């Protein structure tokens, strides 16, 4: 388990939040007056991860080069926390040729082979892929691990169950991370899932399952460290169910009428100011540092946006490139 560095955890969460907040602004800026999801510099859907930073930062703090992550349609926090280049990622979101996939994938299809990061909007697709990655690590004799991230709704897909079964059977070094943000789009877990907690499902496959409450980055850090250590030591898979918080809508443009009173308190539960308060109480963070960390993140994000918006778009001649592997 890597040693805990609270300031690093805080900085990374702020960096991700600054990114998501800026993408939110940029995404909406040119879709008015009538909402047109296809209009503007960032066309298509957008699923932002603000509020879910503790999950990504707590898990990725233990990963190293060569470890793999598969992520779902809400991938930005895990991508950034795992070291995906912000410029290339932003260019991809903007559909530019300098993007990770030369602008042809967009925000839900960020593929970074160098960092073994991939994501897709097909629900639960990452689980079997992570099992394949973990099998490769095991057969190569390395101690790398694969992390499969998805939401609580994805745990009702067949691919989830097939993956847990195979991972347990073959003792694969994979960590299944469920980000339970209470809403599968607009469906609460109680309406879709027979189990009150997806951590319980791990029992059926003979692997440890832990539910982490309070969206607490240090609680995630501790549990993820233990799960990743277990996997590196050859002890097999684990399941981490992280109760987290979706600050924004499922997608941008989501009016969230279904959320009711939950929306009234959502910003009171923001994990970043809460953690700043904890660090200040510990004497590990000052108001000056809060300001300078925010400024540093803003500078980096501004540079990424500038890189993306000044990059060329793919041309018609490129349309048939990269279609087949």
């Amino acid at each position, binding site marked *: 388990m890597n040693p805990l560095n609270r300031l690093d955890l805080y900085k990374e969460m702020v960096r991700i939040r600054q990114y998501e907040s800026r993408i939110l602004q940029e995404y909406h800026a040119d879709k008015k007056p009538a909402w047109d999801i296809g209009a503007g510099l960032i066309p298509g859907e957008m699923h932002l991860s603000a509020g879910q930073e503790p999950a990504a930062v707590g898990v990725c703090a233990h990963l190293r080069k060569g470890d793999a992550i598969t992520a779902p349609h809400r991938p930005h926090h895990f991508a950034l926390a795992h070291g995906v280049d912000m410029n290339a990622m932003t260019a991809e979101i903007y559909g530019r040729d300098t993007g990770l996939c030369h602008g042809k994938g967009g925000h839900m299809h960020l593929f970074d082979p160098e960092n073994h990061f991939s994501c897709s909007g097909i629900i639960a697709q990452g689980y079997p892929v992570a099992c394949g990655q973990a099998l490769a690590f095991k057969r190569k004799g390395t101690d790398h691990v694969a992390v499969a991230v998805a939401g609580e709704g994805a745990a009702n897909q067949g691919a989830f169950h097939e993956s847990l079964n195979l991972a347990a059977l073959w003792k694969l070094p994979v960590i299944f991370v469920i980000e339970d943000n209470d809403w599968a789009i607009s469906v609460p877990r*109680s309406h879709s899932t027979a*189990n*009150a*907690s997806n*951590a*319980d499902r*791990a*029992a059926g496959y003979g692997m*440890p*399952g*832990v*539910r*982490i*409450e309070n969206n*607490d980055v*240090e*609680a995630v*850090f*501790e*549990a993820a460290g*233990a*799960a990743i250590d*277990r996997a590196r030591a050859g002890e097999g898979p*684990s399941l981490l169910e992280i109760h987290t918080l979706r600050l924004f809508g499922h997608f941008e443009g989501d009016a969230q009428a279904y959320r009711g009173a939950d929306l009234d308190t959502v910003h009171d539960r923001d994990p970043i100011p809460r953690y700043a308060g*904890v660090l200040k*109480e*510990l004497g590990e963070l000052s108001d000056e540092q809060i300001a300078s960390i925010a400024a540093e993140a803003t500078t980096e994000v501004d540079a990424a946006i500038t890189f993306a918006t000044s990059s060329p778009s793919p041309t018609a001649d490129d349309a048939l490139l990269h279609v087949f592997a």
Partner: protein
Amino acid sequence: MPDVGVVGIVANPSSGRDIRRLVANGAFVTTNDKVNMITRMLAGLRSVGVSSALSMTDLGGISASLADLAKGPASKAWPALDFVDQDITQSPADTTVAVHAMVAAGVGAIVVLGGDGTNAVVAEACGNVPIASISTGTNNAFPRSAEPTVVGIAAGLVAIGALDARDVTCRAKTLTVRSGERRRRALVDVTITAHASIASGAVWDSSTVREVFLCFAEPHRIGLSSIGGHIRTVRRGDPFGLYLRLGRPTVASVRVPLGPGLMANVDLAEFGELAIDRTMTAVTPFGMVAVDGERAFRFDPDDTVNVTLTADGPRAIDVEGVMELASARGLLARTALPP
């Protein structure tokens, strides 16, 4: 048996799911397991004539499952089941609110499904209402193991007054820890650790432990109290507890089960009896106070942490004792028994 009596039910939806499934070999206790235990317990309650049960409400699936089952044929073997009308915060405060409601409703006993921490929260709120515990936590030092059906019978007999509660309950000892305005109560242990934050909550690593104060120390238990159990056994009925200060120079060293499947070497620099109503002050200058194995709050060098052992804890039902008395008096006999 008269058709009377109300029994309260507290079931912690979070117990048995924490990091000790990863860092130790903590067993799973799923929501379905807890619901199953409650159905068995309810059958036990009804069998001795308890007319109704009042359950806390939770968002962890327990009360929802019970409410659903209560509409079906299985519930014919149950007392009438009602639920506390409460706002859910998904924190220990939910248990406190529920127990207050149960006490106000005049329950004759409360059955608690949880670990040491859940029982401690119930103990703070239940006053003189006897409690019977079914273990669903990780270390489970306070709740004794018992089949839920039998716990239901025992709690039911106490609730309907078939037995004098004074004959079959004993006052648990408690530890009260105070630091400034902060105050918490423990049924098993108060521990001073080197942690700087609550994080995942559990205490499982002996290298982080500095001092332990114990209500009792039984050698057949796991968890922090096992350290004391192999230094000097202290029974639940003994008029004292134990304090332990870890470190060097070592006066004693033990190897004990600090968690399920987790053995640890523990070196002690000092230990001794903690008398009832005696207050001790933690000597560790700063760190974390943990209550019944869960990190609770931080303290700094400017803070004083005082720990007091008292004998005014909850009245814990001796399930085995109840059943022996019930057998001796033929309370479950349907006919006169031959001599």
